């Protein structure tokens, strides 16, 4: 487990978290390379299916990072995203994958430090949780020669 490098997918809003990631970069702040950023026009564009498919296709953790409460460029995209993340968490608990692998975060475009810290903390949390059990199961299946 020592060598486990989790794959993290971060859906980042163009108007805040994505810019905060840029800010973190220009300030030379370190955050783990495990985090794969997907820029979205607004977190309201991230559907439950995007999050689920990221996990099904092998991510160990997924987070959605949007604007601070009340600051959405499109008024309420971040509120919609928060509700969807909660929905996906419940679904993941029900199928035995665990809702704690998914999270919603809020930050503004100027919060480079928050971006870097969030990326680091979330990566550590997923590292502690261990690999996505769906991927582990799939590997087991592969070992016994059954296709999936």
């Amino acid at each position: 487990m020592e060598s486990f490098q989790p794959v993290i997918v971060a859906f980042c809003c163009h108007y805040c978290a994505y810019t905060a990631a840029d800010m973190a970069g220009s300030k030379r702040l370190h955050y783990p390379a495990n985090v794969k950023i997907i820029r979205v026009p607004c977190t309201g564009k991230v559907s439950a299916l995007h999050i689920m498919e990221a996990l099904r296709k092998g991510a160990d953790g997924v987070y959605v990072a949007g604007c601070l409460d009340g600051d959405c460029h499109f008024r309420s995209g971040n509120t919609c995203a928060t509700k969807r993340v909660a929905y996906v968490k419940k679904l993941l608990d029900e199928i035995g994958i665990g809702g704690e692998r998914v999270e919603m975060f809020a930050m503004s475009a100027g919060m480079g430090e928050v971006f870097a810290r969030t990326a680091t903390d979330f990566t550590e949390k997923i590292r502690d949780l261990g690999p996505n059990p769906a991927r582990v199961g799939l590997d087991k299946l592969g070992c016994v020669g059954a296709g999936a």
Partner: protein
Amino acid sequence: MITAERKPIEDLIQSVSPYRRILLVGCNECVTVCSAGGRKEVALLSSALQMHFMKEAKPFEIKEITLERQCDPEYIEELVPIIDQADAVLSMACGCGVQEIARRFKEKPVLPAVNTTFMGASERQGVWAERCAGCGDCVLGVTGGVCPIARCSKQLLNGPCGGSTRGKCEVDPDIDCAWQLIWDRLKALGMTERYEENIPAKDWRTGRGGGPRKIVREDLA
């Protein structure tokens, strides 16, 4: 529209467990509008089931398709080329769609993925409410456009009952009293004299009381 809700995931996991290859069939009509069984819900359920069985290290294949309408035989035919690739069908349509697939493919197990609930309307984004019970003899014309059968908990035709309190039904304070709504609407229409008219006992044979119903349009049939 006909409204429905997806069954709890654990029930669905249990019902598909005996099978290895599932054909998951959505419907593009009512269940799409009420976010229960359209293309998006099909994709989401498929993803969830796949992940569950991956975790269990159990071989499981699922194929997704969403038909224009599951309650019309023409569209069901689209399943003919793929039905043999599945051990069972999991349908996300209302009960009508599930039954049409079962009728067409006699030897294929067909499982319902949603609980079909009521005929209703959207109150707002994400909220649907019951509006019609399909009684077969509509009285909306005399009740100010508010249905006393679907919306009064006791289906009273000459309400309200004594439990109506500040516009709410005694069954649940979250339910509007249908008869309050009827009165308010008749008042707005200047037709309160309608309220004085007694609606005679209803002949329930036009509804479910007469057994399963059928509509035949001679000019079309």
